[in-house]
């Protein structure tokens, strides 16, 4: 039995994106205008790709964590820490333009991110703490750590090589777009070319059966949280290099919520199991397009929050079986769980 095209998981997010594009086309045709100037492409579409890249990258990492039935609330803090780490290293160096210095700063920042991801993973897989609770710790403490690194200041650097990460161009497109592609391709390759993807889905869908089938859940969980942190680190480098500075307080603020939203819109369920990296990218694109559309339409950007709230609720309601059932009957029912809780045997 083939899945009908409207049942294919990518359909709804793509359709929503299409509707947004249509809306833009009708109201502000210059939305689609792309111009070529001094070797670079410019336009709203390019802006979407560019400004949405940190979110897209964080969301890719978040997808895998959510697929294991977990969540990572600390990515925002990790974004801040990565940027702070890199800027600090560069600012302490002798020659801020030195490529070697920049490379070591980048590697250091990413290494710190991965170690923090390991911390999260150990709390979840080792100590058995609920992911929401475990990552909450780093979410709170992480901001403090970022401030510690920057000594409470906003560290500015003047470094062309560093600036290239977030603001540079490669072959007419912003460099950050290539980073998104690289992260996505890497994740896609790791999960679909190796068995990691299947194991992740298995763990998220049925941890008990996975254990009985011999899957090494612990190491996979560690890997997944480390990768998510790595993604947050890369996103942090992009954001901070874009403004050539590190702000421990505001960098990556609330990006975890946007990332979760992107994953959920993209069709991956919060309950874990089947995931879709492509869907997440569409979700991230959707959120960024939403922001840009609202901006282009002259609507105050703060409305974005209200729209996001509506979208989150809509997506979750559609995913909720109780909601679908009550829509079919026209009334909210007593939640079905109360009947199913009564035990049975034989």
């Amino acid at each position, binding site marked *: 039995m083939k899945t009908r095209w409207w049942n294919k998981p990518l359909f709804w997010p793509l359709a929503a994106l299409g509707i947004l594009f249509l809306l833009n086309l009708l109201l502000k045709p210059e939305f689609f205008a792309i111009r070529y100037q001094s070797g670079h492409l410019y336009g709203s579409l390019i802006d979407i790709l560019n400004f949405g890249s940190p979110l897209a990258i964080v969301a890719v990492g978040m997808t895998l964590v959510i697929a294991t039935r977990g*969540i990572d609330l600390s990515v925002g803090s990790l974004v801040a820490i990565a940027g702070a780490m890199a800027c600090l290293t560069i600012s302490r160096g002798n020659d801020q333009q030195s490529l070697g210095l920049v490379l070591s700063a980048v590697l250091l920042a990413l290494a710190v991110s991965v170690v923090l991801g390991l911390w999260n993973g150990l709390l979840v897989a080792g*100590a*058995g*703490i*609920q992911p*929401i*609770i*475990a990552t*909450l*710790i*780093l*979410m*709170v*403490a*992480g*901001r*403090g*750590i970022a*401030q*510690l690194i920057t*000594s*409470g200041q906003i560290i500015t650097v003047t470094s062309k090589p560093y600036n290239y990460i977030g603001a540079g161009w490669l072959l007419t497109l912003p460099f950050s777009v290539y980073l998104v592609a690289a992260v996505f391709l890497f994740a896609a390759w790791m999960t679909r070319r190796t068995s990691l993807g299947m194991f992740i889905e298995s763990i998220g869908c049925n941890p008990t059966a996975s254990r009985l089938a011999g899957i090494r859940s612990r190491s996979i969980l560690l890997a997944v949280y480390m990768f998510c942190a790595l993604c947050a680190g890369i996103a942090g480098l992009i954001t901070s290099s874009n403004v050539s500075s590190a702000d*421990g*307080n505001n960098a990556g603020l609330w990006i975890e*919520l946007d990332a*979760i939203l992107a994953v*959920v819109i993209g069709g991956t369920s*919060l309950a874990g199991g089947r995931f879709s990296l492509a869907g997440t990218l569409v979700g991230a694109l959707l959120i960024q397009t939403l922001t840009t559309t609202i901006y282009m339409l002259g609507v*105050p950007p*703060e*409305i*974005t*929050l*209200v*729209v*996001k*709230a*509506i979208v*989150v*609720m809509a997506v*979750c*309601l559609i995913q*909720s*079986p*109780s*909601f679908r059932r*009550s829509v079919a009957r026209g009334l*909210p*029912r*007593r*939640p*079905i*769980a*109360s009947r199913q*809780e*009564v035990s049975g045997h034989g």
Partner: protein
Amino acid sequence: MVDRKYIPLLVTIGLFILMFLAGSLRYPGFLSAQVFMNLLIDNAFLLIVAVGMTFVILSGGIDLSVGSMVALTTMLSASLISQAGWPPAIVIPLVLAVGTLFGWLMGAIIHYFQIQPFIVTLAGMFLARGLCYVISIDTITINHAFYTKMALSKIRLPGGSFISISVAIALLVVLLAAYLAHFTRFGRNTYAIGGSESSAVLMGLPVARTKMLVYAFSGFCSALGGVVFTFYMLSGYGLHAVGLELDAIAAVVIGGTLLTGGSGYVIGTFFGVLIQGVIQTIITFEGTLSSWWTKMVIGLLLFLFILLQRIFTARSARSRPA
């Protein structure tokens, strides 16, 4: 021998006393009643919000919208008072009602559609803050005599120190909540649901009503916290109370309440807030450290308490039915 269930609470209280003593030893002028009262004055709004959060967490849920609700309350109050000219006697009950209704709605969606509280209150957070900005992007100052009087009010205590009216309100809320938690069926049902929702259903407890009430109460506390916040800040602004939900959750956890639900005391949250205040005060007294150290220390405390909770529950889980 002390009852095992009070141990987390005693640890929290002990920690607070320890910290206060440490501060007193290190800094001259620390050991004074006024320094203690200032803890309450500066954190009255957090205390009120955290009390509401305590109930939600006791029931096994979480409420991420509290900070945004505080902001929305300030914005609504400011706009109605300064721009529409309404009297506080109408505005204050109105914003309290809005907060309560908002919470009640979230509770209904969480229960009837079986969606995780995390996501629903997350949407609530977006919505409330978004509505703030819909009302106004900039600050709106409150110039009303009533508010100014509230802001400057001092209640003299025997011994020379003073507290603000907000503190009195906060303490009242704490006492009310403690009473609710310990002496009403609503409170006990909350604990029951947090302990095992499926059992609570089978035992015939009014789970739906209790859950909605719990979130409504949290909404009420957020709104009341917002009102107290307006006494403090005399303005409405969309960026007020950003991250307050995390502070509230930290206060609840450090106060000894289990994040998984069913165990904890309102008085614990009281001390959790005090601990946050004392850390902040110590850092201020120290002078050389920036306030961001607070975040790290709180994060560290959070980690320690969560780890302790985990060990605590792992031990008692062994005696639970298979």
